[in-house]
């Protein structure tokens, strides 16, 4: 029974495909999976927006949306209808083609990332040999669409927002990649399915997730920071800093195109969260061996939900960083920590089993964390600012 429930979607798909001729099965199967992904995540996006607004509201002792439907749960429907029926405005001096392409490319590249994410046992669209690389390649392409959006709008706020976004994404992408490379080093594979399988064993009922090792924990923290920055979420939401830049790179977008940007942002959050749970939190695995009877996809989406809640929690808590703080944090703290973590992971690998490696690796990482943090938080004397302009 549990087995069948676990594989229900796989079985369902095969049963549907059984009615088709042999030569049709592969393409139609792909289409079904793609449609599922494209239908599922926007639905989750809708739920998350209302969850976020209500959650952040509660953190600020407000009620949040509560007018549309019971407890305001139909709010996303109203928002969706509103954005669909709104006039689509393209500024006269905007570059119409690029302006149109930007949100499309953003959404396409963001959705592409899900192709390699295993969302349950046997539930992956393409088990690619270089799955992680594919994911990061798609992630890197979103930067271009952000730039296109900002540049084509012909608005200084848009352009500044895009510049900020791209600078931030490039900076934190390095950290994101380096923190994931540790996992690749330990599992010896870029395939996300293999990475999940590498964590798929339990001792004393507890799983061997990578987060439960010193280097894994450090990498996870760095990944979370970089992932938050990569998705332009608070506290790294400078590109959209409404106090300075109206809405950043999507200032000049309205109606459905704006909705696409909004969707892209949230789907990127899902995608980053999904990858994070795949890399560090055992993907679709149960957190205790006794809970394995619960279907694997529930665990995956449960982890997704938890990380979305953490995103919302962070948003409700932290104020926005300044640009120089953002860059300094990326290059002077996160990057050195990631590089050190690579070394620690190697050390872990070659020290062999035993408590000694726990001690040594933890000591190195904690020492580095404390000293780098102290260095970073050293009292700085600020003089008058000097600005440099491009010639």
């Amino acid at each position, binding site marked *: 029974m549990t087995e069948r429930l676990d594989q229900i979607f796989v079985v369902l798909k095969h049963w549907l495909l059984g009615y088709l001729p042999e030569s049709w099965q592969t393409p139609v199967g792909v289409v079904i999976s793609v449609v599922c992904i494209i239908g599922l995540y926007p639905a989750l996006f809708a739920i998350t927006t209302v969850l976020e607004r209500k959650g952040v509201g509660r*953190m*600020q002792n407000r*009620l949040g949306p509560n007018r549309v439907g019971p407890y305001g749960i139909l709010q996303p429907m109203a928002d969706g209808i509103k954005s669909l029926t709104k006039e689509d405005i393209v500024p006269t001096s905007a570059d119409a083609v690029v302006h149109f392409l930007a949100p499309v490319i953003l959404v396409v590249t963001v959705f592409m990332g899900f192709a390699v994410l295993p969302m349950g046992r046997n539930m992956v669209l393409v088990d690619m040999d270089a799955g992680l690389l594919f994911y990061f390649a798609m992630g890197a392409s979103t930067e271009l669409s952000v730039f296109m959006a900002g540049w084509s709008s012909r608005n200084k706020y848009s352009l500044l927002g895009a510049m900020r976004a791209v600078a931030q994404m490039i900076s934190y992408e390095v950290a994101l990649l380096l923190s994931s490379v540790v996992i690749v080093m330990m599992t010896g594979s870029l395939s996300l399915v293999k990475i999940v399988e590498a964590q798929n064993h339990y001792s004393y009922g507890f799983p061997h997730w990578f987060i439960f090792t010193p280097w894994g924990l450090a990498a996870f923290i760095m990944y979370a920071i970089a992932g938050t920055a990569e998705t332009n979420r608070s506290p790294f939401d400078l590109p959209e800093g409404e106090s300075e830049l109206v809405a950043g790179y999507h200032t000049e977008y309205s109606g459905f195109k704006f909705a696409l940007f909004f969707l892209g942002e949230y789907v990127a959050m899902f995608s980053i969260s999904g990858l994070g749970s795949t890399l560090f939190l055992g993907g679709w695995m149960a957190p205790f061996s006794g809970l394995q009877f619960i279907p694997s996809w529930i665990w995956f989406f449960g982890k997704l939900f938890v990380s979305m809640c953490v995103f919302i*929690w*962070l948003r409700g808590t932290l104020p926005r960083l300044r640009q120089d703080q953002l860059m300094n944090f990326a290059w002077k*703290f996160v990057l050195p920590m990631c590089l050190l973590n690579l070394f620690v992971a190697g050390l872990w690998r070659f020290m062999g089993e035993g408590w000694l490696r726990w001690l040594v690796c933890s000591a190195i990482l904690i020492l580095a964390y404390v000293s780098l*943090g102290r260095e970073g938080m050293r009292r700085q004397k600020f003089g008058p600012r000097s600005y440099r302009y491009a010639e």
Partner: protein
Amino acid sequence: MLGDGILKGLAETAKNFAGSFVSKERMTTVEYPEERLPLPEAARNFPFLVYDGDDWEKGLRCVACQICEKECPPKCIYIEKSKDKKPDYVGKPQIYPAKFDIDISVCMSCQICVEVCPFEAIKMNTEFELATDDRFGGLLLDRKELARSNEYYHQIHPTEASEVDARLAEEKAKVEAKAKAAAEAAAAKAAAPPAAAAPATPIAKPAAPVEARPATAAKAAEVAKAPAAATAPVAPKPVPGTGSDGAASMTPEDKKAAETPAKTNEGEPKAQGEPKE
């Protein structure tokens, strides 16, 4: 250490999040259309017209004196006087507003109309849900829309309304007393026709109220004036020249009547000026 501030902040928001479900004091939101906070008594928005009794048209206190129309800084009041008269709360026939419009899209809620009104007829309302889809007609309120009962006034501004009521009752009592006195005087006059008006006036003068039923006061003044004007040129003369014809023919009663108006004459400018101001 790096990050402890973040943890502290996260704990704080988590506390707020959880607390918002438990404690009612945290959630200060008032869900407006369903829940409302009671308005403070001094709240005011736009003016309304007070009426007494059940019939708004009959009970309207406004006498169309147009003071508010003249005083209104943005000139949002428009009044047309009636041709006929109807009795006011003391039973005196008064003209009434045939038309009384306030354009609340122009009104700035300054309350000057309320302050200048001598008849307690216009007061400030607290009603604020005046949104309408008709931008011009919908915000131009006519006298029917403006009319609110005195009970309503008591409801929204209880302290102020009872003060007003007390004042009005006092006035009414005074007017009634005066009317009674006037009636008595009239009776006396009927008994002694030439001298009747004179004793009545000294009583009427100080009784003339601040808001002054103008007609009553003016009449009293007129009554006082008429004999004064008639006798004043004559009165000083009899004292030195007693041998003249007129003076010689004067009876003691006539002398007394001639003196009294002259005495009241001193107090007259004050009494007369009051209703005007």
